[in-house]
């Protein structure tokens, strides 16, 4: 019933029912109560109905209250400053595809700024104004990449809200403890109960939470039920050991090498090979070492490769996949896996005490260079070995760094991930200074935002050069988009010289100058907006100005 409740069993109610019945059937068929049949009956009915209608409305009473919701838990975080709250509402109101869209025009793409905004607000531990929670949940619903940051920021009231609206169920699943609150991790009885009776997602959340704090305790919990878990669950649980992986995990992983499931075995082997001190790593070092030796038969020292001739059962047990994918030779396939899983510390001893850089510089006989270097790259990424990564990356300004060499751009991006943020930015800056932007997109993606000053300058200089070369800016729209999000807003003033429409050189694409000016204006506007945004989230300065 839509209207506030009406007393149902009063005499007036039955009089009203009779009027409705007469009205439905028509006064020709049913004479309304209290009036004579005939010409005047409809008017009498309308008179009576008018009086009843007004009486019913005037006599409305409130309805009984339903069960009130449990109050939302307190959010102890300090509130956003007002300016930041308004900015958030503005960013959330800018839905993709709402108007125009695309990467044209001079105005910023506000939705793209949301991740940075959320990250900074979370860094400061601020709480949102409650009335923006619906928009925040809607945004997180549409973009899974935003969810973790958005839900952290949204806080406990968003979880409370999500229980009331099925559209926001995801928030219950994605927030640790959203569905059934996680027990306190020191309450071992509750922990054990949830581990044994919880839903899969709750168990994963529980295991990850414990692993993050106490790796050993998580492993022990896992051991209690390991034998009875389903294969795909075992795989997910095993994956959680990546966090805080250490030598203490070795016995458990060794045992998992004998698992019934091939995927579980492969994951266990991968984790073990990331522990350079593990027995598996030692076994792989022996196997890989047997395939690689210094070869002195030529003019100078070189690396000779003798790939394995078979993949025996013990290799398979250690996670080597015997069957090569279509198009790959079996022996090189096995060889790659052995080198990838062997500790990198094996090689200097094996290759005449050389440093990684010297080893990488050695020639390799019989075209094995690509295979060997690629496997070392994978090993450097897996073992997070910065020295080897540096050696394999080489100098960013080397000519082969730009073209498709032994190490692909994707691998280079991964290798860069093992370096510290400053070194990473410096390498990419050097790369861009030599090779320009056309290959740089993937590498820029692994650099921390905001970009360090030298990297930012390298990108802006390269964009400037690209403009002068006369092409259209949309060839660089990917980099432009990254620059909008990652350039340090403090650099905005350095771009002022690029905002004007330049004179068009004769060989330029028609109108390109105007489009470039537009693209740079958009870049500057976005940077200024980000600058304002960041300032609004900063703690208020000391008193005075």
């Amino acid at each position: 019933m839509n209207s506030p409740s009406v007393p149902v069993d009063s005499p007036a109610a039955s009089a009203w029912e009779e009027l409705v019945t007469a009205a439905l059937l028509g006064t020709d068929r049913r004479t309304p109560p209290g009036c004579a049949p005939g010409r005047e009956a409809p008017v009498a009915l309308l008179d009576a109905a008018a009086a009843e209608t007004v009486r019913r409305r005037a006599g409305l009473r409130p309805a009984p209250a339903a069960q009130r919701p449990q109050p939302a838990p307190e959010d102890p975080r300090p509130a956003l400053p007002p300016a930041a709250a308004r900015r958030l509402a503005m960013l959330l109101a800018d839905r993709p595809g709402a108007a125009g869209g695309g990467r044209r025009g001079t105005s910023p793409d506000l939705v793209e700024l949301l991740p940075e905004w959320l990250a900074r607000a979370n860094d400061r531990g601020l709480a949102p104004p409650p009335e923006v929670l619906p928009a925040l949940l809607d945004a997180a619903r549409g973009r899974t990449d935003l969810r973790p940051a958005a839900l952290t920021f949204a806080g406990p009231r968003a979880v409370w809200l999500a229980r009331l609206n099925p559209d926001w169920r995801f928030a219950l699943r994605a927030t640790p403890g959203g569905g059934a609150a996680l027990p306190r991790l020191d309450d071992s009885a509750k922990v054990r109960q949830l581990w044994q009776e919880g839903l899969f997602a709750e168990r994963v959340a529980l295991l990850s939470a414990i692993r993050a704090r106490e790796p050993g305790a998580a492993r022990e919990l896992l051991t209690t039920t390991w034998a009875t878990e389903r294969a795909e669950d075992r795989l997910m649980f095993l994956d959680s050991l990546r966090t805080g992986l250490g030598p203490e995990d070795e016995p458990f992983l060794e045992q998992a090498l004998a698992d019934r499931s091939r995927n579980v075995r492969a994951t266990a082997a991968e984790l073990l090979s990331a522990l350079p001190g593990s027995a598996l790593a030692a076994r792989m070092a022996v196997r890989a070492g047997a395939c690689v030796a210094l070869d002195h038969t030529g003019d100078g020292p070189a690396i000779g490769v003798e790939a394995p001739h078979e993949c025996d059962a013990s290799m398979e047990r250690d996670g080597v996949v015997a069957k090569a994918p279509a198009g790959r030779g079996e022996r090189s396939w096995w060889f790659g896996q052995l080198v990838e899983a062997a500790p990198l510390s094996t090689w200097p001893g094996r290759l005449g005490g050389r440093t990684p850089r010297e080893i990488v510089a050695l020639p390799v006989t019989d075209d094995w260079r690509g295979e060997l270097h690629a496997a070392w790259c994978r090993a450097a990424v897996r073992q997070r070995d910065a020295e080897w990564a540096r050696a394999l990356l080489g100098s960013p300004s080397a000519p082969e760094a730009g073209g498709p060499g032994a190490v692909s751009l994707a691998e280079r991006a991964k290798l860069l991930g093992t370096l510290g943020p400053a070194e990473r930015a410096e390498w990419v800056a050097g790369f861009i200074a030599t090779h320009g932007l056309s290959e740089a997109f993937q590498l820029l993606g692994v650099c921390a935002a905001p970009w360090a000053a030298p990297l930012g300058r390298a990108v802006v200089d390269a964009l400037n050069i690209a403009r002068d070369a006369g092409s259209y800016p949309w060839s660089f729209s990917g980099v432009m988009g990254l620059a909008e999000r990652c350039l340090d807003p403090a650099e905005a003033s350095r771009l002022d010289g690029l905002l004007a429409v330049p004179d068009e050189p004769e060989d330029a694409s028609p109108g390109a100058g105007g489009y470039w000016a537009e693209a740079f204006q958009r870049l500057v506007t976005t940077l200024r907006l980000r600058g304002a945004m960041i300032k609004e989230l900063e703690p208020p300065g000391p008193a005075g100005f």
Partner: protein
Amino acid sequence: MTQQGVRWTADQVLALAPDAASRKAGSKLGAAGPWSEAGSADEGTVWGLCKGSGSKPYQTVIDIADASGPAYKCSCPSRKFPCKHALGLLLLWAGGDGAVPPGQPPDWAEEWIKGRRQRAEDKRSADASGSSTGSADPEAARRRAERRAVRVTAGATELEQRLTDLLRGGLAGAEQSGYGLWEETAARMVDAQAPGLAARVRELGAIPASGPGWPVRLLEECALLHLLDQGWLRRERLPAGLADTVRSRIGLPASADGPPVRDRWLVLAQYDTADVKLTTRRIWLHGADSGRTALLLSYGAAGRAPELTLPVGLALDAELTAYPGAGQLRAALGEQFAAPAPAAIRPPGLTTAEATARYGVALRDDPWLDSVPVTLDRVIPTPDGTSWQLADADADTALPLTPAARARPGLWRLVALSGGAPVKVFGECGHRGFTPLTAWPQGAGDAVQLY
């Protein structure tokens, strides 16, 4: 008053936008980037140059402090009003981070502001000197009104005939007879110069398709329409206030002629409803000193925003004049003594039981009233099956939300704002339920719009 004191919030600025696209475009221009030589003067004028895609920047100037409402001028070619540049500049000004420093207006801005102020001054003195120049011939006006009354009477009589025919044959047949019959009758009421009757008749046509319980609703609306016809036909015998209400419900023109009431009027809500031809803007005001509630209506042709804009949370020192009719809340905005400024006033609230009682009392003056404006104090938005209600925090009573209110995103803002705790809610309370329009959190905090 200091400059900071009259500064608007960004929400209030954005409420000036004529449509969603302008709001968005304006938001993006609300950063220092494209602006140069921006400044503001104490009396509430703001100006700046905005870099567009052309070589010459646009000149934008806004007079926010004029008592007759904000005025804008921009050299851009947009026909939106205010344009995105004006909105962006106001946002920059509202942000208050020094991007719009106090200063002297440049010549191009100064010229416009002076001209505007002068025109306003001329108009005021003209109004003051000779106000009776409008209606030249009262005798002719009286004859026109009489002719119109005759036509309305003919229309009301014909409508009575249609209603009795309908009731004689039974409402059950109304589902089959369809919309066309009502459309035709509505057109006859337009011919009879009774737009109020025409609108009610058109709504009757939609009821048979409106879901379960439609016969009851149809009978109610037919009965109230009959009541209105009868009220018109016997208007000479009605008390003066009720007769005025009937005239206004029929749709006869009236002018606000009550005594002007000066107060600090807090803007409680502003929302638009649009049909094919017309956008209607309703602005609810609360008099901080008189405690009165008043409604301002303003209209825009289809697709255009009505001119009057009063953002929620502002208060204006102004005179309002009531329209004729007993219990009439509609008023006209008279003289404004100062520009609207943010205010922390909240209206006092009622319980749910007091709210329904207030609706009941209001029906005595105007039985055709669908709802009354009410502020509820200490209510908790509460799920009730598939629907929602506002439950008193201190009693086991509640008001269900109207179906329209349940479907709006504002519902979730209200629920989030409350978090299960009592809030203060302003809205419209009537026989269909409660429609929340604005809410205030427990403790400190600005008004939150819910539509």
